[in-house]
């Protein structure tokens, strides 16, 4: 039983997947403004494109706990709001709307039509909605098509009919689109192919002659049934359809896109065909045919056009000419099709054109791009090809057409949205000597490949950095009167004086301000309506508006050591441990409270809260003493300076700050006391607004220096700036309102203060050494900073130099010309026609050639130069597949770089003409590589490993150990250890964990005396392993191609037996069990993550955090698995999961537990993503769940956020 499993892990996504699998455009908020809804993995996100700034910002993201396969937007006639239909793996059709007032998605309909899961005959693969919003069709790849009629009832609510069937057995659908027919009966077009006949014909002739047809399905709204209205054969290679506007806007019908051609088809029109222009150039194969891989139709007033993208990334503008009658009126009859080159953008999975004149490119790999249209290519020199010169008959051949590449003319890139997709490999290493490690990843494909550094932090934009005459100790800004919008002075305190600067056009020193310039300052405050106070060790200076000064001197032989102020109150602590309290009178003078409070020790910090709206005073004073306590004193008139509560701390407080901040538990704002300690620890406790009780303390270690806290304002919210060895910002998350503490990507500061001026409304001013810095924080929604270094080809694996901060990336691209071939072609062309240019690959991709491989190994320096510093290309059609750094014992432990390559590899079906293992010597501290020799092996070595001073290589199913010789590698020992193909190797001691491409992992022991490799334990379940890591000596964590993450463990007894001395013979002769080894691994944990894990690593993510399992997924997910320590926590989270899955059922109708158990039952895992949904629930539901669990809302939220913040961001 799963609940009694002895191990549990908390699975949480740190960064959601960034691959966009679906993107739709619509007016989802019900206003004129268009939004973009995207699906990435199980996350549904609504974005707001900002046409004025040319930026896209996410508004809201929801995890639907299901696979989003298709999205469609539709609008009911006469309405101004678009609804969203989701086709998912739930076997249900889901209609949702976006509610802008609450910023969330709300489900309107959920109708079951079939089994759950992604199946051949369960609809969900295709989803199209009638342009007039009257019906939608949802279809499967084979056979099933369902039509739902959408309507509204008398209350203007959306209604959905029961499904109408349009099934056709033994028919496969390639593409589907809804026809634009105006207000006639809705028609859906599908590209279909029947396989019934070819399945019956042993000669194969029927298959050869099988036809692809364009089929129209008409929904008869009067009779309420669907008929197969029209079917006509089209090009056999057709695979995509696009809707052509109909009704008053155009001729209706579809564009059928196949290999090398685009054809216009409609039931009552002639067909028109244009070829897809091919690139011309010396490196292009003139015979290579292009297909359309993405496209978009855009309707403008009275006109429309298509932008279709070929698989090279070239956009073509396609337009349709119509026949005009004698009066120049359009007759609705099509005359010709026109096509011309538009521009080149990265290969898109979806293209969207916004009404505001922007093009959104959801890239297949790499960053998503946001372009602005400069023009529409209407009157340029580009050659246009028309259908007049080409027959519409698909069987007739024609002359191909060519175009010349050029730089972008029509599109202008305005924003690029970071995307890690596809994330191929990653490592968690601390390279920057920060307190927390960074994540290094290789991402992207082809010429859009990159090496990325991910760092936890907020981006800071620096405005001013200026050097001061000496080292200041503190800085403040102040405005002059209460009504001022901006700050007027910057006050700097030095060891022996104070300097006042005025803020204006320029910042310059002023002297006649009334401030005492001969003493250091402890605090500055704008008081009452229009006066200022300066607190210095000898007293308090009250500066009135007319520059008169009232001075309150500190008592004899005592000085002021700490001060706290707000706009009506002042409290100071004297060196004797006394606290003196002042309040502002009605007439604006500062009046001392007649009693002083004697504290038990020296006061180290004081804080007064802000005066709440509509009140005359803050009712609490927080006092921190060197006896490691914080006391809350009352400031109410009837109990002034009386004790309210005490909190004991682990160290003396260095800074205190009472602040009210947004709070997720209450939904409003809550008063918090922030405490910074001398030990570098930061605490945040809730301060009860009535009783002054402190509760719900959360702790975080920030750095080795004492923590200083400052109240700042960022993006309209109150935030806390915490300074230790590096600066941190505490703020509320924009979506969840949960408290976030994130380091700033900035130098360490000694002091900080809020800063507001005309040029910089929400900034901060800080001191670093002798420098004054003014900076601001522009974005709070992204706490992972990325740096990107471009790579040449698709990265496959990478590793770090054993000592130096350098990485070695192996890259290879299939169907791409190697640099040598490219060079030869260019030289040929040059000798023929003189000067020829080759388009830059970063914009236009590498030249392609079927069967060719281009591959290299590159040295990347992510720290100093942040670039690729050297590169070695592989020749003779070799492609790098594996890499390792091996210290060979036989070479005095000198480390060599080992790269495995495959020659003439084809991916599907897998084959090759062997492989090589290349040996390189590190030169110049690893900055250069020197080739030593290469050794031929019979199959590509897909896995290499440094093993006990030698090299272990997985060659097909054989594990082999090599030593380094003078001319080549020397075979020392080998054994067939797995059934299929070794894809990954891990080691500890003399144990090697071998992953098979589809048979999970096998543990192999190497017996040194006997020089044998003996597999002794394997798995009982096939797992198509992608990556593994050894968590400990017995346990291996791994991921598979279906998106599962699992943990398997070798039984203790088997493990011990394998390592016994002299057990070689015993192990070797043990009888195998069911065609495997004698023993089986035990499954410890299993969970479905949807994204394909590409790397797993045991690591820490934050300073002082525990070891966790960090994994990255192919679509750009970064996730983690945290082992639970206590049984009680497991029980709590299990019941929380149950409550959440029941009360807040997943949006698309997939059952949460079944989703996480997609391929095998989830085991030993708590879904953190589901638990974090709790933050986003409405308050009443939070209370209800809290009631069920017998805990308070705050307690539950604290437990959930602790799970994250203790070990990660």
């Amino acid at each position, binding site marked *: 039983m799963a609940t009694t499993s002895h191990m549990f892990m908390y699975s949480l996504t740190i960064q959601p997947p960034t691959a966009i699998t679906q993107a739709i455009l619509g007016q989802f908020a019900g206003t004129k403004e268009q939004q973009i809804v995207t699906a990435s993995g199980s996350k549904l996100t609504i974005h707001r494109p900002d046409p004025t700034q040319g930026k896209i910002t996410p508004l809201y993201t929801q995890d639907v706990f299901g696979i989003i396969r298709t999205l469609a937007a539709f609008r009911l006639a006469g309405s101004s709001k678009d609804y969203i239909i989701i086709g998912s793996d739930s076997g249900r059709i889901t209609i949702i709307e976006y509610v802008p007032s609450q910023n969330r998605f709300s489900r309107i309909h959920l109708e079951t039509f079939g089994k759950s899961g992604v199946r051949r005959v369960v609809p969900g693969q295709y989803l199209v909605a009638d342009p007039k919003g009257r019906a939608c069709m949802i279809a499967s790849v084979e056979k099933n098509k369902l039509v739902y009629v959408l309507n509204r009832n008398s209350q203007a609510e959306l209604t959905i009919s029961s499904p109408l069937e349009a099934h056709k057995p033994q028919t496969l659908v390639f593409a589907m689109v809804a026809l634009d027919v105006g207000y006639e009966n809705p028609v859906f077009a599908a590209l279909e192919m029947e396989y019934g006949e070819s399945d019956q014909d*042993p000669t194969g002739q029927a*298959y050869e002659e099988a036809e692809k047809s364009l089929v129209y399905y008409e929904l008869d709204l009067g009779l309420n049934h669907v008929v197969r209205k029209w079917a006509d054969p089209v090009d056999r290679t057709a*695979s995509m359809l696009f809707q052509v506007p109909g009704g008053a806007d155009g001729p209706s019908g579809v564009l059928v896109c196949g290999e090398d051609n685009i054809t216009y088809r409609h039931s009552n029109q002639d067909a028109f065909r244009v070829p897809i222009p091919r690139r011309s150039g010396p490196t292009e194969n003139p015979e290579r045919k292009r297909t359309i891989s993405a496209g978009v139709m855009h309707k403008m007033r009275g006109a429309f056009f298509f932008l279709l993208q070929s698989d090279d990334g070239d956009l073509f503008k396609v337009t349709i000419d119509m026949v005009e009658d004698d009066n120049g009126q359009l007759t609705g009859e099509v005359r010709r099709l026109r096509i011309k080159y538009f521009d080149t953008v990265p*290969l898109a999975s979806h293209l969207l054109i916004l009404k505001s004149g922007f093009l959104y490119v959801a890239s*297949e790999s790499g960053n998503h791009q946001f372009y602005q249209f400069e023009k529409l290519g209407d009157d340029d020199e580009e050659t246009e090809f028309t259908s007049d010169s080409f027959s519409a008959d698909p069987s007739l051949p024609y002359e191909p057409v060519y175009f010349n590449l050029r730089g972008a003319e029509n599109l202008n890139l305005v924003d690029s949205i970071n995307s890690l997709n596809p994330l*191929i490999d990653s490592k968690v290493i601390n390279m920057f000597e920060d307190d927390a490690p960074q994540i290094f990843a290789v991402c992207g494909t082809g010429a859009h490949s990159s090496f990325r550094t991910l760092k936890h932090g907020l981006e800071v934009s620096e405005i001013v950095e200026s050097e001061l005459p000496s080292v200041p100790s503190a800085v403040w800004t102040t405005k002059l009167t209460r009504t001022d919008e901006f700050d007027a002075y910057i006050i700097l305190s030095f060891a022996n004086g104070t300097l006042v600067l005025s803020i204006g056009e320029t910042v310059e020193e002023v002297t006649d301000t009334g401030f005492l310039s001969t003493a250091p300052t402890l605090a500055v405050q704008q008081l009452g309506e229009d006066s200022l106070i300066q607190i210095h060790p000898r007293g308090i200076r009250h500066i009135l508006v007319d520059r008169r000064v009232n001075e309150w001197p500190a008592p004899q032989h005592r000085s002021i050591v700490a001060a706290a102020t707000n706009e009506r109150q002042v409290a100071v602590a004297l060196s004797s441990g006394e606290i003196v309290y002042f309040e502002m009178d009605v007439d604006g003078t500062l009046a001392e409270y007649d009693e002083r409070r004697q504290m038990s020790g020296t006061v180290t910090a004081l804080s007064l809260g802000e005066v709440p709206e509509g009140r005359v005073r803050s009712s609490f004073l927080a006092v921190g003493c060197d006896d490691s306590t914080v006391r809350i004193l009352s400031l109410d008139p009837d109990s002034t300076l009386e004790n309210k509560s005490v909190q004991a701390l682990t160290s003396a407080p260095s800074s205190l700050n009472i602040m009210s901040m947004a709070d997720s538990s209450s939904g409003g704002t809550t008063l918090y006391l922030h405490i910074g300690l001398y030990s570098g620890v930061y605490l945040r406790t809730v301060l009860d607004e009535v009783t002054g009780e402190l509760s719900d303390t959360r702790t975080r270690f920030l750095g080795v220096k004492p923590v200083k806290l400052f109240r700042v304002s960022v993006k309209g919210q109150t935030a806390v700036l915490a300074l230790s060895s590096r600066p941190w910002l505490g703020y509320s998350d924009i979506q969840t309102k949960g408290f976030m503490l994130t380091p700033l990507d900035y130098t360490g500061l000694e002091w900080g203060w809020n800063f507001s001026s005309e040029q910089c409304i929400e900034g901060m001013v800080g001191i670093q050494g002798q420098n004054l810095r003014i900076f601001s924080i522009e974005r709070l929604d992204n706490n992972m900073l990325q740096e990107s270094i471009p790579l040449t080809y*698709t990265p496959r694996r990478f590793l770090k130099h054993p000592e130096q901060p350098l990485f070695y990336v192996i890259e290879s691209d299939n169907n791409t010309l190697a640099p040598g071939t490219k060079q030869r072609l260019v030289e040929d062309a040059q000798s023929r026609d003189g000067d020829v240019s080759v388009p830059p690959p970063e914009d236009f991709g590498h030249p392609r050639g079927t069967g060719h491989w281009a591959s290299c190994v590159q040295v990347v320096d992510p720290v100093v130069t942040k670039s690729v510093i050297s590169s070695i290309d592989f020749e003779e059609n070799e492609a790098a597949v594996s890499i390792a750094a091996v210290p060979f014992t036989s070479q005095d432990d000198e480390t060599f770089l080992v790269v495995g390559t495959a020659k003439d590899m084809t991916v599907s079906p897998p084959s090759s003409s062997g492989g090589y293992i290349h040996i390189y010597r590190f030169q110049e501290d690893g900055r250069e590589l020197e080739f030593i020799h290469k050794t031929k092996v019979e199959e590509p070595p897909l896995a290499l490993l440094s093993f006990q001073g030698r090299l272990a290589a997985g060659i097909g199913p054989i594990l082999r150990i090599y030593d380094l010789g003078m001319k080549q590698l020397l075979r020392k020992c080998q054994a067939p250890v797995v059934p299929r193909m070794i894809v990954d190797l891990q080691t500890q001691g003399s144990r090697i964990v071998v992953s098979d491409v589809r048979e999970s992992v096998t543990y192999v022991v190497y017996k040194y005396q006997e020089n044998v490799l003996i597999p002794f334990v394997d798995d009982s379940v096939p797992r198509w392993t992608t990556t593994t890591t050894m968590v400990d000596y017995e346990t291996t964590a791994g991921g598979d191609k279906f998106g599962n993450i699992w943990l398997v463990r070798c039984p203790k007894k088997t493990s011990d037996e394998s390592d016994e001395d002299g057990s070689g013979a015993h192990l070797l002769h043990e009888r195998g069990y069911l065609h495997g080894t004698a023993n089986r691994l035990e499954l410890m944990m299993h969970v479905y993550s*949807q994204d394909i894990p590409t790397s797993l690593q045991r690591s820490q993510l934050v300073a002082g955090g525990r070891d966790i399992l960090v994994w990255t997924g*192919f*679509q750009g997910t970064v996730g983690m698995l945290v082992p639970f320590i206590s049984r009680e926590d497991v029980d709590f989270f299990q019941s929380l999961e149950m409550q959440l899955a029941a009360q807040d059922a997943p949006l698309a109708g997939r059952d949460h537990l079944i989703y996480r158990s997609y391929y095998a039952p989830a085991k030993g895992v708590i879904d953190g993503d589901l638990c974090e949904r709790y933050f986003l629930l409405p308050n009443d539901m939070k209370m209800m769940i809290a009631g069920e669990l017998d805990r308070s809302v705050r307690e539950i939220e604290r437990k959930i956020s602790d799970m994250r913040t203790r070990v990660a961001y």
Partner: protein
Amino acid sequence: MADKLRTMQNLEAMQARYVGTGHADTTKYDWTSNIVRDSYASYIGHPPMLSYMAVGMGESKEKVRAQMIEKMVRGAGNPPETQE
């Protein structure tokens, strides 16, 4: 007898509804064809898997998708000669 009949009817309903539901006379060819078609439908239906394969093959996702449906038409190849 009634039970047996009902089981039969249920099975027939399943076979009509879900392509690939087996019966006593399923041939090896039927069975492998169904496996092939089910597999390809699953590959194109799971977005991460489709793009994983596309990156491996060095092609665009759309091209790989179309190729896979094309392979579904083929199934497990030509059927065996039927013996009369």
